[in-house]
């Protein structure tokens, strides 16, 4: 699609320019058939079996722009990224990237398991375009950021998957790229490392780097990106301001099937190692009539004071997962305690506007403007509202009727 909302940028302002890119995957019966097709491009015999992964994509990303990419699995997101990285050759069209480029797609894919962390740093960084002198100069910093101790001098095959990712991320980020592609690679690793990574990415962004951010979490897209594209069937279905695109996508997905994907998955780490967690959630009443008050009492525990910027969010959702209302303390400028120990915060609704139905309540504890999820309790409480029949619908919207009589 063309987008009038984004005027054609100046030449020097363009970080990524994709022009009419098409990627077809011909379905070859055997590698030999693929060979023949390369040597004699016009040879028939393929039977016309072609899968079009990218269908005429044109996209310009300005320098310093942070763009989210959303879409279902199979929509073409990965192919687009691979074309950008140059690991996949487009069937037609051109891709131009200005400046040094790094992709956090498959962290550590270029590592050789038999070689030490140090050796792999040199290999990997030179692949990303650094000279030996540059790597020498950054080695200490790379080692410090990865924070894997003596393992730095040991073969990579002895690493845990966490250490592997730490080292790979550290190398990629130290190339100081002008264009950075972040896939969901960041969901691995522990929370403190995730925060370190985000801080680093934020610093790159502040310096004017262009970032493409692929995520299934609409919340992350909204918080992190300025613009977003929504891909479907190999095309860009919608492009625009990030939260607008993310909301349209969510609406679309809800209409499509009732099992909506959870935005923020619980971190899945055991409580022993998390820096903070939610202890209890209590509802003042779980069966009520409309317009009654309700309070959600939350107590949470902080273990690690060094983390700042905690925020709590409470979401009310329908039983089908539809997100009805979900404010958080950061967006509403409420500061919550961040000293270590237990704290209590109450979320009060003086007059519940929801109509008859059963609703679920999710509570989440985050940091970093909501980018990093520390704890997320999905469906921690259920709330049933029962009312005599006075209206259809989900929510009471203040209104009045005016009858005009001549």
């Amino acid at each position: 699609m063309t987008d009038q909302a984004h005027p054609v940028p100046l030449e020097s302002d363009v970080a990524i320019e994709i022009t009419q890119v098409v990627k077809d995957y011909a379905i070859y019966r055997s590698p030999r058939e693929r060979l023949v097709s390369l040597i004699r491009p016009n040879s028939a015999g393929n039977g016309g079996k072609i899968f079009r992964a990218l269908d005429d994509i044109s996209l310009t990303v300005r320098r310093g722009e942070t763009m989210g990419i959303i879409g279902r699995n199979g929509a073409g997101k990965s192919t687009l990224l691979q074309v950008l990285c140059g690991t996949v050759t487009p069937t037609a069209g051109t891709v131009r990237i200005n400046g040094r480029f790094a992709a956090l797609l498959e962290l550590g894919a270029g590592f050789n398991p038999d070689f030490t962390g140090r050796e792999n740093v040199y290999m990997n960084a030179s692949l990303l375009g650094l000279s030996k002198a540059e790597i020498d100069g950054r080695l200490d910093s790379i080692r410090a950021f990865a924070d894997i101790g003596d393992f730095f001098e040991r073969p990579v095959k002895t690493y845990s998957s966490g250490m592997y990712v730490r080292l790979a991320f550290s190398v990629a980020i130290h190339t100081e790229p002008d264009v950075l592609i972040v896939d969901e690679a960041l969901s691995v690793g522990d929370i403190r490392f995730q925060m370190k990574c985000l801080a680093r990415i934020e610093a790159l962004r502040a310096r004017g780097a262009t970032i493409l951010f692929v995520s299934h979490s609409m919340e992350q897209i909204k918080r992190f990106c300025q613009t977003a594209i929504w891909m479907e069937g190999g095309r860009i279905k919608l492009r625009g301001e990030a939260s607008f695109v993310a909301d349209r996508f969510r609406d679309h997905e809800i209409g499509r099937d009732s099992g909506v994907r959870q935005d923020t998955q619980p971190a899945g780490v055991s409580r022993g190692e998390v820096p903070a967690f939610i202890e209890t959630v209590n509802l003042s009443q779980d069966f009520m009539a409309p317009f009654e008050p309700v309070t959600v009492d939350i107590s949470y525990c902080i273990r690690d004071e060094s983390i700042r910027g905690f925020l709590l969010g409470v979401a009310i959702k329908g039983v089908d997962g539809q997100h009805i209302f979900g404010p958080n303390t950061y967006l509403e400028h409420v500061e919550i305690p961040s000293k270590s120990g237990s704290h209590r915060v109450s979320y009060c609704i003086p007059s519940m506007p929801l109509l008859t139905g059963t609703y679920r309540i999710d509570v989440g504890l985050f940091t970093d403007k909501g980018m990093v999820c520390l704890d997320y309790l999905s469906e921690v409480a259920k709330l049933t509202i029962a009312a005599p029949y006075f209206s259809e619908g989900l929510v009471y919207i203040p209104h009045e009727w005016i009858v005009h009589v001549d």
Partner: protein
Amino acid sequence: MQRQANFYFLFRQLLGRELASRYRTTALGVVWLLLQPLLMLGVYTLVFSGIFKTRWAGAATTADFALVLFAGLIIFNIFSEVLVAAPALIIGQPNYVKKVVFPVEILPVVRVAAALVTAFLSLVILLVAQAAFGQAPSFSAILAPLVLLETVPMMLGIAWAISALGVYLRDIAQFVGIVSSMFLFLSPIFFPSSAIPQGLKWLIYFNPLVTPMEQLRAVTVQQGLPDFSILGQHFGLSVLFAGLGFQLFRRLSRGFADVI
């Protein structure tokens, strides 16, 4: 697109890695480099000189025969190491093809360089052995490294072409072993070119290993000068061949990710 990798530095690292993985991780390490050619040389000398009683003009003793044999084997080993490894060079690195931006054309170059390192070490063994058998290598032996380097374009051409084709045609991996054995016996290693009957001369006209083998023997065991004109022609053709091999590689590399 993204051709930003630091080629030379990458090459050095890969070569170091290649050599190290071969010699660092084994118990005897670099000793293998000496042991392997010496053992093979022992067997060949025993069979051809001791059992078949092969005669080589100008090589009267068994020791002389061993030196002549060894010189030929140095060239053959470069060829064999490159050819046999080539089909798996690209297939063996799926991550480099699919997951990261990697100049895969460098992998065949590294393979050739590694084979050349082995050849240089073998050359040192040859010259030391020559001296040990009482014939101090002549001044012309300083040209021997040149003869080894002359094989580089030919080997690169082979490595690029076979490694690229090997991605699509898996049968090649089976085939190269046979081809290597054929060249071992059809090249003038165990016999001089002059011993080939007139009717079979075509065998050596079309064998690209003949020139480097003969020239290497000329500057080492025969203590003479190489035939610069033949060497020059061979080099010219080799460069042409390398160019073709590279073109083929570039062309076929576009489909690597689709089949690996």
